[in-house]
């Protein structure tokens, strides 16, 4: 595996990414998605009306704190939300390579169509590889299983492909590692093995849920490079879920910021980082200590904490922590995503004409 980064960068905002996007149709269109959990204590609105488009050969980062619904949103796409969670509204339209579309939100659980897409067209990698890899089967066998399920190959060919994939993700001595059990590998190697498994069927969309959170920074850098490189090679769409602003800045082309089950702001990575519009995005960007920042300075922290999911504030959910809270407006209605500059933002500051930058 190459040790130096092999990244081709995206165009800066001047080179209108929007126009080049318009010519291609999104691989995945999520609209009005609501995934609610019906618990004994009440309904937890984990995902509450999310609209997102995901395009081929682009990386969309979903940024949010724990409990904002970013993982549940991703799991909804593959329909692997555990009970008592249920998709209650919305559409997840997947566009196959031949142009055929299927609404994953309403596809019958266990149906052939859904099973064919899972693992083949849409693959997912998880945060903790030790939990997602079976502990008592060899790495190679687990990858071959996926390949045999989805691709028309003989066992010998599948083995070849698996070893080839292990080699592609930078595992040294892949033929030997093919025979290894997950516990014999280090954390970084396990994560690579999982990526190899996810990519073994050459998916068109890769969903990565905090793929590097459990890893060390040097390993994290290698894994992020690897995902970016494979994205280019296979013209894959990547949906990367993370809470780490640094990771977003490193790999994203598009960013969606989530707070309490809603997308509060989305746009291209430069707009989000250089011209954030939503108070939450701004506060989030200000509150991270950065390497090179003046030390010992107080960090501008966001006050308070995320409200309890069963006690959602009325109106805008961020209003309880927002410095620009406007009584009479923010607590009355829910703001909707509206275009503002290069991004879309859900905040009354921008729709009321009371723009106090």
């Amino acid at each position: 595996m190459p040790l130096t980064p092999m990244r081709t960068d995206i165009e800066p905002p001047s080179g209108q990414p929007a126009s080049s996007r318009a010519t291609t149709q999104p691989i995945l269109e999520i609209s009005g998605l609501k995934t609610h959990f019906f618990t004994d204590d009440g309904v937890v609105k984990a995902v509450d009306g999310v609209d997102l488009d995901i395009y081929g050969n682009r990386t969309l980062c979903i940024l949010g704190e724990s409990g904002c619904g970013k993982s549940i949103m991703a799991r909804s796409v593959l329909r692997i939300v555990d009970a008592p969670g249920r998709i209650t509204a919305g559409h997840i339209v997947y566009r196959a390579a031949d142009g055929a579309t299927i609404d994953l939100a309403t596809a019958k659980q266990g149906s052939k169509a859904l099973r064919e897409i899972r693992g083949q067209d849409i693959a997912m990698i998880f945060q903790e590889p030790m939990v997602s890899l079976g502990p008592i089967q060899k790495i190679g066998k687990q990858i071959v299983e996926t390949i045999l399920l989805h691709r028309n190959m003989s066992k010998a060919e599948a083995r070849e492909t698996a070893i080839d994939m292990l080699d592609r993700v930078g595992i040294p001595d892949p033929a030997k590692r093919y025979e290894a059990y997950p516990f014999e590998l280090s954390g970084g190697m396990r994560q690579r093995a999982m990526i190899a498994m996810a990519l073994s069927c050459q998916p068109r969309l890769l969903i990565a849920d905090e793929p590097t959170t459990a890893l060390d920074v040097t390993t994290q850098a290698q894994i992020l490079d690897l995902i970016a490189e494979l994205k280019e090679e296979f013209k894959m769409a990547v949906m990367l879920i993370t809470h780490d602003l640094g990771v977003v800045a490193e790999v994203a082309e598009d960013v969606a910021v989530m707070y309490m089950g809603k997308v509060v702001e989305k746009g291209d990575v430069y707009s989000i980082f250089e011209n954030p519009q939503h108070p939450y995005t701004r506060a989030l960007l200000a509150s991270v200590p950065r390497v090179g920042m003046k030390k010992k300075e107080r960090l501008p922290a966001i006050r308070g904490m995320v409200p309890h999911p069963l006690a959602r504030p009325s109106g805008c959910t961020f209003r309880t922590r927002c410095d620009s809270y406007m009584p009479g407006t923010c607590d009355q209605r829910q703001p909707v995503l509206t275009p503002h500059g290069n991004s879309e933002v859900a905040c009354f500051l921008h729709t009321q004409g009371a723009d106090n930058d």
Partner: protein
Amino acid sequence: MTDTILDVQDLEMHFPIGGGFFGGAKSTVKAVDNVSFTVFRGETFGIVGESGSGKTTLGRCVMRVLKPSGGTITFNRKDKPAAELVGEDTGHLKDIWRDLRMVFQDPQSSLNPRLRVLEIVGQCLRKSENLKGAELADRVSTLLEQVGLRKEFLMRYPNAFSGGQRQRLGIARALATNPELVVADEAVSALDVSIQAQTLNLLQDLQEQFELTYVFIAHDLAVVEHICDRIAVMYLGQIVELAETDELFQNPKHPYTRALLSAVPVPDPRARNRARVPVGLAENDPTDTGCRFASRCPHRTELCRSTPPPRKQINGAEVLCHYAGEV
């Protein structure tokens, strides 16, 4: 002000592995190997490293939760005789643990779920100062307010709190006995960005208020840079570089430090194409004969593989590398 509060010399923590009930150990893991550093009163001393570098073990040795297999740890308290922690027996340690406290990483598992806040924070006061009843409740309420919690929380159980609040409870517990030195092991790693900022601010405020000294163990370099005065970088049980924060970040001298710094994701999309210092994968177990970083180092030579690197002093920084200052 170079008042030394903690002086660690040649500290070793070797764990025997292998061997059965009768047989001797087959080999040893040198989790902490020949580590020396001093911490000055009132500063924040950072220890960074990746997982497996021995930073937590080092913190536990300093706390004397683990019994180091060699070396000395001298703890100089105000108005009290200096204590040598390595040979100390548990009876004495109980007294020392009033002045030497710890904040743990996981606020979930470090608080007993069956105890109320009053007990969690007040237990040590009950034991050490014989406080009871209303007096104890008063002291705990004051502590809660100092860490930004309401005193109505006194009779609640930990499960009623969020992660950030639990970490505040852990901090309140550490502060209960009015300590001089607090070892914070990954105290903010498990917290969300916005809560992490609040907690870092709180730690800084408390440091000013109570003249605390922190040993701050973390893997997040941005956090460490933000809060620490001096930083030790650990790699496989050794401190490979020890320097003042500015010097370390602006002028890293050890190849590992450089690799680590360049691998940190920067929250700025325009910085993404910056050059990165390549690091190889660890080939096999490092041997005692040479530099432990040699198999991953881009600058290695035969010398690195055959001879342990010397500790060099450059520009006030200590570097464990044959070619420090040259490459």
